[in-house]
C-alpha cells in the first residue's frame, strides 16, 4: 500500500495539493500531517496531528509513517509570508524539515518532495539571466525567510545522501500568483500605491497555482528528481506587472528603501522586511528547462496570464468592464 502524506495542509499550496491528491487518488490514500486540521471540505481525509517544532516530532512521524504505510511525503509546511516571529519560522522550516527528513529516512519513505521557492537563489545583480539548478543559492544574509528555506532543502538532501533508499525532490516554485492566492506578494498587488526602487525594473516570474499543482503531479509520477525549478515560460518586468494592475508606483532610492521597509515592517504595517528590497531591485529568473526535460512538465500559463487571472479574481468589476470594452471594440 503506497500512501502519500502531505504536511502543511493549512497552507495555500498544501491544502490545494491535498485536495488534488484526494480527488485523483481517493481520500483513503492520503494522510494530512499538520498541527491544524485540514480545510472543512476535506473532512474525509485522515488527519494526524503533529507539531514539527517539538523535539519528539521525528519519533511521532516515524510511528505515523509506519501505521499508515506511507511511501511518499509532500512537505509543504513553509511560510510563504515573512513572519515577525523569525525564531518560530526557523524552528518550523529548518528544524521541522530536519525532523521530517530523519523520520522519512527511518520510516522507510521512498520519496520526499519539499516545496521551496526560486527566491532562495537570491536576487543578485551578478546573477545570470537564467538560474539553473546547478547555481549555488545565495539568499540575502539578513533575510532569514530565505535562509531557513535553503537550510530545509539542505537538511533533506543530507538525509538523502546518508540513506540511499530515500529520494528527494525539491520543487523551487516561482512566486505564486493567481485566483485564490493570498500572500504578502498578492497583498502588495492589492494596494493602491506600491513603493518601487528608483531606476530599477527587474524581471519577475509569476506562477499560476494550477501549474504548481501540475508540477507536483508530474514529480510524484516521475519519482525523486533532485532540485527542480518550477517556473512559467516567460518573465515580465516588475513595473509592467504593477502598471498592468493599475498600481500607482512610488519610486524610492535603493539606499533608503531597506531601512524604510524595516521601519514599516517594525511598526506592524509593512508587508515584508527590508531584506526583500533586493527582490525588487535585481532579477532572480529561474530556468525551467530541467523540469521540461526530466518531468516533461511545461507550464500552461505565462506570468502575464497568471497576473491577469489574479486581477480578474481580485478585481471582478474591473475585469468585467474590460471584457465588455473589448467586446465593444470587436463588435
Amino acid at each position, binding site marked *: 500500500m503506497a500512501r502519500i502524506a502531505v504536511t502543511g495542509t493549512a497552507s495555500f499550496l498544501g491544502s490545494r495539493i491535498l485536495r488534488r491528491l484526494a480527488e485523483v487518488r481517493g481520500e483513503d490514500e492520503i494522510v494530512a500531517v499538520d498541527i491544524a486540521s485540514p480545510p472543512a471540505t476535506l473532512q474525509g481525509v485522515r488527519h494526524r496531528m503533529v507539531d514539527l517544532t517539538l523535539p519528539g516530532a521525528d519519533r511521532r512521524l516515524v510511528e505515523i509513517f509506519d501505521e499508515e504505510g506511507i511511501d511518499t511525503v509532500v512537505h509543504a509546511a513553509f511560510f510563504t509570508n515573512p513572519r515577525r516571529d523569525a525564531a518560530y519560522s526557523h524552528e518550523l522550516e529548518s528544524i521541522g524539515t530536519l525532523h521530517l527528513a530523519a523520520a522519512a529516512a527511518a520510516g522507510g519513505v521512498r520519496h520526499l518532495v519539499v516545496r521551496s521557492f526560486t527566491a532562495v537563489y537570491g536576487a543578485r545583480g551578478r546573477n545570470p*539571466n537564467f538560474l539553473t539548478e546547478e547555481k549555488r543559492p545565495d539568499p540575502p544574509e539578513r533575510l532569514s525567510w530565505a535562509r531557513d528555506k535553503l537550510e530545509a532543502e539542505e537538511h533533506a538532501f543530507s538525509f538523502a545522501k546518508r540513506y540511499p533508499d530515500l529520494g528527494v525532490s525539491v520543487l523551487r516554485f516561482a512566486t505564486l500568483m493567481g485566483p485564490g492566492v493570498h500572500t504578502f506578494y498578492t497583498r502588495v498587488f492589492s494596494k493602491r500605491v506600491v513603493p518601487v526602487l528608483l531606476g530599477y525594473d527587474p524581471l519577475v516570474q509569476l506562477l499560476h497555482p494550477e501549474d504548481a499543482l501540475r508540477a507536483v503531479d508530474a514529480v510524484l509520477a516521475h519519482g525523486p528528481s533532485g532540485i527542480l525549478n518550477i517556473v512559467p515560460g516567460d518573465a515580465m518586468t516588475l513595473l509592467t506587472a504593477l502598471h498592468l494592475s493599475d498600481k*500607482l508606483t512610488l519610486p524610492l*532610492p535603493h539606499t533608503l528603501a531597506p531601512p524604510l521597509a524595516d521601519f514599516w515592517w517594525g511598526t506592524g504595517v509593512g508587508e515584508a522586511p527590508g531584506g526583500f528590497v533586493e527582490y525588487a531591485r535585481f532579477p532572480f529568473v529561474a530556468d525551467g528547462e530541467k523540469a521540461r526535460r526530466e518531468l516533461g512538465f511545461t507550464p500552461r500559463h505565462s506570468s502575464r496570464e497568471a497576473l491577469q487571472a489574479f486581477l480578474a479574481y481580485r478585481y471582478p468589476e474591473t475585469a468585467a468592464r474590460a471584457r465588455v*470594452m473589448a467586446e465593444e471594440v470587436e463588435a
Partner: protein
Amino acid sequence: MSPAPKVVPLHRPAASRRAAAPAPEDLRQRVEDLERELAAARAEGRAEGLLVTLARILDAGARNVSWASLARLQRAIYFAWHSEQTDDFGADPRFAETLEPLLEFLYAVWWRVETTGIEHVPAQGPALVVVNHSGVLPYDGMMVQLAIRHEHPARRMCRMLALDMFALLPVLAPALAKSGAVRANPDNAERLLGRGELLGVFPEGVKGVGKRFRNRYKLARFGRGGFVRIALRTGAPIVPCAVVGAEEIHPIIAKADWVGRPFGLPYFPITPTFPWLGPLGVIPLPTKWSLDFGDPLDVSEYGKDAADDPILVNRISEQVRSTIQRMIDGRLARRRSIWLG
C-alpha cells in the same frame, strides 16, 4: 445716484468656476470614449507616442485627480515607451524604438560614425563581435549595435554583453536590459549563441572603459580569455571590431575613485567638463568616430575541448587583441583631426 464703484474681482467667484467645468457625466462619458479608443488602438497593436498619450490624458480632464487617475496616468506614460511583453532576456522592442531617434542623432550627427567592413558580420548564425571599450559610459556598445542594425543587410540585432558595473547601476541597468544587452556572464553568452544570436563583447572590461586619456587607444588586457572559451565551446566565429573616436568623448585626465566607491562605482572619472560643469559635463564631446569590422576568425576547427586548453585560449585572445590594436593603429595613422576625422 453715484455710479457704483467698479470692482475688478481678483478671483473669479467659485460658482462660475464650477459652471465652466464640464458636468461629471460628460467627463465620465469622455473618459470612457477615450478608454475605448485606447483599447481599440491596443487591439490593433498601434503604438502611441508619449506626447499623444499625455495630450489625451490632459484632455480627458486629469484635473479631478484620484489615485486611480494617477495610476492610469502612470500606466499610460509607462506603456507609451515600454512594450507590455519583453523577450525572456528582458529586451523590449518599443523601448528600443523610443531610444532610437536619440541614438540615430548621436550616430549620424553628433559623432558622424563611419562604418566599414560591416559585411564581415555573418548574416545569420551565432557570432561574437569583439570590440575595444572606451568612453566612460557604454556609448560604444550602443553605436556598434545601431551600426549592425542599420547598415548590415540582414538588419541583425546585436546583443551587447554589459559589464557587471553597468548591470548594477540604477537607470542604466534596466535601460541596457531593455535595449537588448545582457550581463556579461558565460552562462548568458552561451545560451544566446546557442540560439544563433549575435553578441557583442568588450573583453577589456572596466580597464578599457575607465582608461585614462594618456593611455588612449592602448588596448588593456583582454580579461582572462573568457570570450575565447565561449567561442570555442559554441563554435561561433570572432569578428574583431575597432572603435576609434570614443576614447576622446570623455577624456579622463584624473580619477577620484574614492568618490565613487560608496556608490558602488569602480571608478570616478575627472574630465575637463565633469564634474565641474555639473549635468553639462555628462554631454560627450562631438568627436568623429569610425567603426571598422575585420575579417572573422573561425575557431570551430579547434573543437569544443580546446576551451580547456589555457595556452591556446590565451594565444587566440592575444591574436584578436593584436588584430584590433592593428586596426586602431591603422585608423589613427590616417586620422588628421579628432573632430573631423
